[in-house]
């Protein structure tokens, strides 16, 4: 089974039924899996803060949400994470491609990569980093943790995890 299918299996097993995405090359396989699953409503967003707003509404409608996005967009989500997700105490798993790490071919991606963990730490967002494929074994536990504590939780997935570019 592909790593993308395993990840989406864990989303379904945790009753995640509303997923919004802004694409990344590395996340293409996961987004295809999300689109293919009848248990999940997939709503592509034009920007990540919009996606987090959609997730907040879905949560209040009784659905467990998830956002799939790139770390390069973390900056545009800061206000939304703080004044909506955290202020109203909402759970939100954030499956994030960690661009700008080892194997990255585009220098500009590194510029956000070096701020990614610092920003998440500053925002007090629990953060997990998938580097080896077996790190995904914890994804199910991370999802349970997220909905237990009602916080945004970041899962950074780097190029080594995805097997390069």
């Amino acid at each position, binding site marked *: 089974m592909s790593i993308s299918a395993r990840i989406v299996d864990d989303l379904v097993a945790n009753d995640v*039924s*509303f997923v919004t995405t802004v694409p990344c090359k590395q996340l293409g396989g996961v987004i295809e899996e999300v689109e293919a699953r009848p248990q999940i*409503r997939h*709503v*592509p*967003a*034009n*920007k990540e*803060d*919009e*996606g*987090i*707003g*959609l*997730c*907040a*509404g*879905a*949560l*209040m*409608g*009784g*659905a467990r*949400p998830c956002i799939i996005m790139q770390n390069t967009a973390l900056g545009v989500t800061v*206000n*939304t994470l703080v*004044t*909506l997700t955290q*202020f*109203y*105490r*909402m759970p939100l798993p954030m499956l994030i491609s960690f661009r700008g790490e080892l194997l990255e071919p585009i220098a500009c991606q590194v510029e956000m990569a070096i701020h990614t963990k610092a920003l998440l730490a500053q925002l007090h967002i629990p953060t997990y980093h998938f580097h080896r494929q077996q790190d995904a074994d914890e994804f199910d536990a991370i999802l349970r943790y997220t909905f237990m504590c009602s916080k945004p939780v970041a899962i950074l997935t780097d190029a080594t995890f995805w097997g390069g570019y």
Partner: protein
Amino acid sequence: MIRSELLRDIAPVLRDRLVVCNIGLPSQEMHAILDQPSNFYMLGTMGLCSSIGLGLALSQPKMVIAIDGDGSVLTNLGTLPTIANNVADNFVLLIVDNGSYGSTGDQPTYAGRKTSLAAIARASGCDNVVECPAEETRAALEAAIASGRMTVIVSKCQSGNVKLPVITMDPVVIRDRFMKAVAD
């Protein structure tokens, strides 16, 4: 007719409905005119009223009315294509278009100059877009709810504000009572 007069006029239609209220004065005015557990007050996060409303409408069957503003929609213009392409027939987006950023001192928006939000909504693919003067908004809202089809209403009103206190209710309390009203 200014926004607070418009909200007072449509309040009977909003009673017991799920209402997502935009940041700042719109929320404060709704709180003063018709506070109810089924109102979700945005205390921050400019621009996302329509996104919260759409996510809510897509996730449960009750009618959702998002009361947004022209300045806020301009902040998050990508919302209109998302709404158009993810049709929720239990969703009405009411854009109170007073051509100004009311909560920050009535600075003009581009919607009050050359830009038409109704035209942008139509070009985005929204099938049912109604532009009306503030005085006709109540009838337009009632018709949109009765139609059972997702509708975007652009209500053209005058700029102007009334002085109101900020909402001091805890955000978690706002969310909790709102979610209970959704599930009720």
